[in-house]
Structure formats: structure tokens, C-alpha cells
């Protein structure tokens, strides 16, 4: 006997606000939704409204960080974007350094910059790979993820961890540049430049891919600014803005120029990511060339170290003093910003002079970019939705925090 379930028939067309529409739930159990749900309202094949339903991977990171000592927060907030671990923690570290009145030595600043750019390349490759599979271009997907390994290897060499390398710590970095890193990077750069040409051939200049991305999800310059879009998505719309221009870490010394697009369509967003990889490779090369000599951590933390473990420093490793866990900052509030692979991240740190943050507010780039989902797909067909999603390089765990 058949069970009658009124209103459960998928083929029934609903009516909302006078329109006959199909309410399509994409996700969270869907091959191309990510850790979130999109509610699409379709009139025929045309998207009339998108309702991004976020929060599926909310881990209360802001609240949890109030319960941990400053140094233990670093490895927690890395979990927001493990693919971009240096960029996501750097502004927090700079915020705490401001409250501690500690300045990292120049060598540490350069090393941070190097790891940040390695992370940015890996993050862009991740985004490009997902952008490929959203168009069912499995070769781009596999190539990007395969070539990402090169940069994970470099990060591994530098820090000892592939993803969650808690590399930057208050006052400096954890490890010195290992021997042979420069040669390994030169190899990686040669390889990546060659691969970027191949990406252009198989993906960016592929007629099918161009047809899917050109004039799809156009974000006008004014609209991008008023919606608060950030990162490559903002620059693709022709806005000359990059948080790296405000000059943190070693960026002021490196003569950095952001990549800026024109049209702001999905293809342009992919283009900006591809070109930013080249820029990042140049930045790392310059940073390695101009890398100053000197200590890698502020002397304030190395003073109290017993001579027994001092030999670690000669090997380029930092053995932090026990008191490092219970650092006390002065009371105050700081705002810091940095440019991640996905866009600009902002930290607002409030301290009441305790060993733990009083409040840590994080605004991640994906949290800012999620609004684009409600704007860009409207008026396009259902098939354009994955193309737009892929071009935005949206990362749900980062948005949900």
C-alpha cells in the first residue's frame, strides 16, 4: 500500500510571491555544495533568488579562543582555513605582538612573507582545482591539486608540517630557513611557470571553459565595493585594493603590485588567481634574495633560555621558554588585517591584561564573499550556478568559523 505524503512530491511546483517556482535545495548532501546549503528558487531554468544557508561547519572558534592562552589560540584559528594556515594566523600574531610591544626581527618578517606566499599559491591552486571540477573539468582539478603538493612540500621543508604549520609565533618564527630551500624553490618556480602555461592551454583558453565562464556572474566595480567583496573577486572587478598594500610583514620592502582585472566576470576571477600565482612566485624569489641575516625571534623570548637547550638555536630551531604559554599582554584593543588567498581577513582583539584574549572577533574573507551568492547567479541559468560558485573560491569552514 502506498503511503500518501502530501507536499512531498519533488515534481510539484510551488508558488511563492505570485511566481510558480521550483525550490531547489543544493546541499549539504550534494556533490557540489561544499559544507553548506544553497536554496535556489528557479523560474524554469532561470535562478530568481539564492538563499545561501551557512553555518554547517560553525565551530565556535571565536568563543573557544577566549578559553585558551594566547599561544594556544594560534593552532585553533589555523583550523578556520587549514589550506592557508600562515595567512590566517598572521594578523592575530601581529595583534598580540602589538599588545606585547614586541617587534619581530627583520629575518622573521621575511620568513613569514615567504610562507604566506607559498600558502597563497597553494590556496589559489586549491580554488582553481575546485573551479575546474565545478565545470566537470577533471583534468584541471587533478592538475591543480597535484601541483599543490609542490608547495605543500616547500611548506613542509620550511616548517615541518604540510598544512597546520604553526610557523609564526609571537616575536618571530619557529624555524630558520633550512639548507637547500633556495634550490628547491628555484626548481618549484621553474616547474610552476611551465605548468601555468599548460593551465592556460587546457583550462583558461579552452573554448568550452571560456564559453561557460565568459560574461557569467559579472560583478561591477561599484557593486563589488558596496557589497564588500574582497580578495581576487574584488580585484577582478577592477578595484586596486589588496591588504598587502597596507604593509605588514616584509611586503613594504618587496615592491608589491596587485593583479587587477577589468570585467569582473567568472573568467576574470580565474585569470586573477592564475596571475597572482606568478606574482607570488616573484615575491618569494625576491624575499629569498633579500633575506636579511640575524635572529629569527625577538631577543625578549630568548633571554631566559637555559644554556642546555641553546644548541637548538644554532640548528635553526626555536625552543620556547615555559613562560611563553602564560604570556600576559597589556589591556587594550587592536585591529589587524592581512590578505589571505581568499581575500582580506580582519582581527579585532580585546585584551583585559589576562593570559587569555577577552574577545577575539574574526571577519574572514569567505564570510564577506558569501553575499555574492545572493547577487551573482540571479538571472543566470541553473547550470551557471556551479560556474559562479567555482569562480568565487568560497571556503565554507572559513566563513562559518
Amino acid at each position, binding site marked *: 500500500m502506498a503511503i500518501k505524503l502530501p507536499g512531498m512530491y519533488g515534481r510539484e511546483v510551488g508558488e511563492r510571491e505570485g511566481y510558480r517556482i521550483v525550490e531547489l535545495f543544493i546541499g549539504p548532501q550534494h556533490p557540489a555544495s561544499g559544507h553548506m546549503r544553497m536554496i535556489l528558487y528557479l523560474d524554469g*531554468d532561470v535562478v530568481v533568488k539564492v538563499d545561501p544557508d551557512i553555518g554547517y561547519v560553525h565551530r565556535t572558534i571565536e568563543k573557544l579562543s577566549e578559553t585558551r592562552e594566547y599561544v594556544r589560540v594560534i593552532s585553533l584559528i589555523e583550523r578556520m582555513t587549514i589550506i592557508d594556515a600562515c595567512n590566517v594566523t598572521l594578523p592575530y600574531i601581529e595583534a598580540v605582538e602589538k599588545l606585547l610591544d614586541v617587534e619581530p626581527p627583520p629575518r622573521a618578517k621575511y620568513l613569514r612573507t615567504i610562507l604566506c606566499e607559498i600558502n597563497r599559491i597553494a590556496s589559489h591552486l586549491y580554488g582553481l582545482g575546485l573551479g575546474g571540477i565545478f565545470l566537470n573539468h577533471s583534468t584541471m582539478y587533478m592538475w591543480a591539486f597535484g601541483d599543490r603538493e609542490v608547495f605543500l612540500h616547500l611548506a613542509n621543508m620550511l616548517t615541518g608540517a604540510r598544512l597546520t604549520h604553526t610557523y609564526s609565533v609571537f616575536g618571530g618564527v619557529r624555524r630558520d630557513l633550512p639548507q637547500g630551500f633556495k634550490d628547491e624553490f628555484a626548481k618549484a618556480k621553474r616547474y610552476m611557470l611551465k605548468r601555468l602555461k599548460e593551465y592556460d592551454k587546457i583550462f583558461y583558453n*579552452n573554448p568550452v571553459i571560456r564559453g561557460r565562464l565568459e560574461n557569467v556572474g559579472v560583478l561591477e566595480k561599484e557593486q563589488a565595493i558596496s557589497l564588500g567583496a574582497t580578495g581576487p573577486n574584488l580585484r577582478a572587478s577592477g578595484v586596486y585594493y589588496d591588504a598587502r598594500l597596507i604593509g605588514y610583514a616584509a611586503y613594504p620592502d618587496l615592491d608589491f603590485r596587485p593583479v587587477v582585472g577589468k570585467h569582473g566576470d567568472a573568467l576574470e576571477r580565474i585569470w586573477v588567481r592564475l596571475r597572482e600565482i606568478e606574482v607570488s612566485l616573484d615575491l618569494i624569489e625576491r624575499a629569498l634574495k633579500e633575506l636579511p641575516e640575524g635572529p629569527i625571534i625577538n631577543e625578549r623570548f630568548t633571554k631566559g633560555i637555559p644554556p642546555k637547550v641553546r644548541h637548538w638555536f644554532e640548528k635553526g630551531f626555536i625552543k620556547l621558554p615555559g613562560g611563553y604559554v602564560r604570556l600576559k599582554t597589556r589591556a587594550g584593543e587592536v585591529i589587524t588585517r592581512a590578505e589571505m588567498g581568499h581575500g582580506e581577513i580582519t582581527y579585532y582583539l580585546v585584551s583585559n591584561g589576562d593570559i587569555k584574549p577577552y574577545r577575539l572577533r574574526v571577519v574572514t574573507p569567505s564570510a564577506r564573499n558569501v553575499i555574492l551568492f545572493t547577487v551573482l547567479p540571479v538571472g543566470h541559468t541553473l547550470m551557471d550556478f556551479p560556474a559562479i560558485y567555482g569562480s568565487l573560491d568560497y571556503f565554507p569552514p572559513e566563513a562559518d568559523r
Partner: protein
Amino acid sequence: MEAEGERVMVLEQLATQTGLPEWLLRGVLAPLVYPGLGAFAAVALFIIWAERKIAAKVQMRVGPLYVARRLGGALQLLADGIRITFQEIIVPVTVEKKAYVAAPIFAFAIVAASLAVIPGGPGVYGFSSSVSLLVPFALLGLIPIVIAVMGWASNNKFTYIGAGREILVTVAGEVTLLASLLATAMMYGSLDINKIVTMQIRTGIPGIVVNPIAAFLFFVAALLMTDRIPFDVVLGEQEIVQGPYTEYTGLLFVLNMALDYGKLYALMLLFSDLFLGGWMPFDGVLLGSLTVFIKTIVLMLIAIFLRSVYGRMRIDQIASMFWSRLFPLALASLVISAAVHVVYTP
């Protein structure tokens, strides 16, 4: 004409040995053994493995490896197939049960039936008719209707959208496919596939050389009809999960998956008969059949290789490509055929 005599002899011998009527023997052996389901099963096993291996090679991966390591993971699909065959068939409460279960079986049976008409070698066919070229086309034309039933019966938004896409794609592709078939028929003045092959052998020139436009159109339309990348809008994983097949599990899903490969196999078999001269360099049953089989596999390999190069086209782009660019080309191929016909049949 020697081939004609030999072919009759082989099956006649078999018929006298077994004591069965020859038509029955043909009607059973062709759709079930070669070029039918038995051969198709072998092709599917090989092609899906090759598809994964070729894509893996392009994409710097290994591909299937662990099942039959010495053969490069060639038996992976067999292992997967056995597992999925014994998997529970889940029938959701909201589906129209009878249509839901019957549709995949029916669709696959139609593909198998179309293999009864397409010759897989000299005299290796189930039935021959003076209009045998139209039979596979007509049978394959039935499948979108069954898929629409599938989408409707599954009672899910994704399947429903997928069924709509299948209809749209068929409308766009079928015209081009028919035009290229008719161009071939016109060229040789016959709708009989066997006769078209014999004409090619007699003239010594395969159809692809005489009318490359028709061959190209047939190939592209076949890609569209069988959901190959870049035309895989019906499956459309990133939008509609698995299209009309979303709600299926177990054996019914296997049938659906085999459906597209079956269609591809049938159409590529037809392609090698119509445009590559069928069993062209050979006359014997065994060598001739092997030639057709190898040609078909090579064509399928070309079709599956496109997966590593392209992404998915949008529906409106496919429709406009087929109606405004390929359909005029089809008319041009008809003009070529008209000219060739005059030369071939004085």
C-alpha cells in the same frame, strides 16, 4: 560476393548441427553474444577501465590499481560491479513503484534490441532488412521517453530536471544524427547497413573519406546522445547530482550506467559500419568481426578521451551549437551525398 556465400555457410552449418532454424539462431546469438550483450559486457569492462586509466595518465594519477595488480587494475570494474549488483535496491516511498523499477530495465532492453540489427561482421547480424539503418535510430529514439518516465517516476527535483534536459538534448542531437544517417543512405542509395558496407568495400573508399562532414556530425551527435563530456548535461553531477538516475541504487543503477555505454557502443558500431567500411580489409567471418570490434573500441576510446580535455558545455550553448552550426553542416553533407550518389550509381 564471396563473403556472402561464406557467411551463409557458417550459420547454416551451425543451424544444421544444432537442429535449430537459422533465423532463431541469428535472432538469439546476435543480440546476446556478438555484437550484442556479451561483447558489450567485455567492451564496457575494458572501456571504463581505459577511461579511468587514460584520464589518470593525463592527470598525473595512477588510476585503478589494486584489483588485479598485474593487469593494472583491469578487474576493478568487475569487483565494483559485483558489489553493486548485490547491493540493496532502495525504493523510496515517494516514487511511482512500477514505472520506477521497469524504466531502467526497459531502457536497457531497447539498447540491447538495437544491437540485433547492426552487423558486427560479415553476415554477423540478428535481422537484416532493407531499412535496417533506421531501426537502431528509431529504437535509440525511444530511450529519451523512457528516461523521461524515469525522471517522473523517481519523483525528485533533480531527476525531473535531468529528464527535461534529456528531452532537450535529444531534440537537439537527433536531427543532426538523422541528417548524417540520411546523408550516408543517400550516398549509397540504400537504407540497408549490410549493403552500405558492401558498397564501401566494392568502391574501396570508406564513408569517412567520401563524406567527412557526415561522419563528423554522426560522431558529435553520438557524443551528445550518450552524455559524453563535453555534452554530459543530463548527468550534470555539479548541478543535478546524477540527473534522471539520482534515486537509483544497486542493479537498477548499474543498468542506467550501462545504458549510456550501451548507447555509445551501438552508435560507434554503427559508425564503424557506415563510415569506416565495417570489416573492410577482410572478408572472413572471424577476421571481419574482429576488425569491426577493434574499430568500435578505437572510436569509443576517442570518445572517452575527450573527458580529459573538456569541461561541460551549457545547455543553451549545446542547443545553439547543434541547431545553428551543425545542422547547416548537415545540409551541406546532404549536398555532398547527392553529388557522390551520381558518381556511385551511374
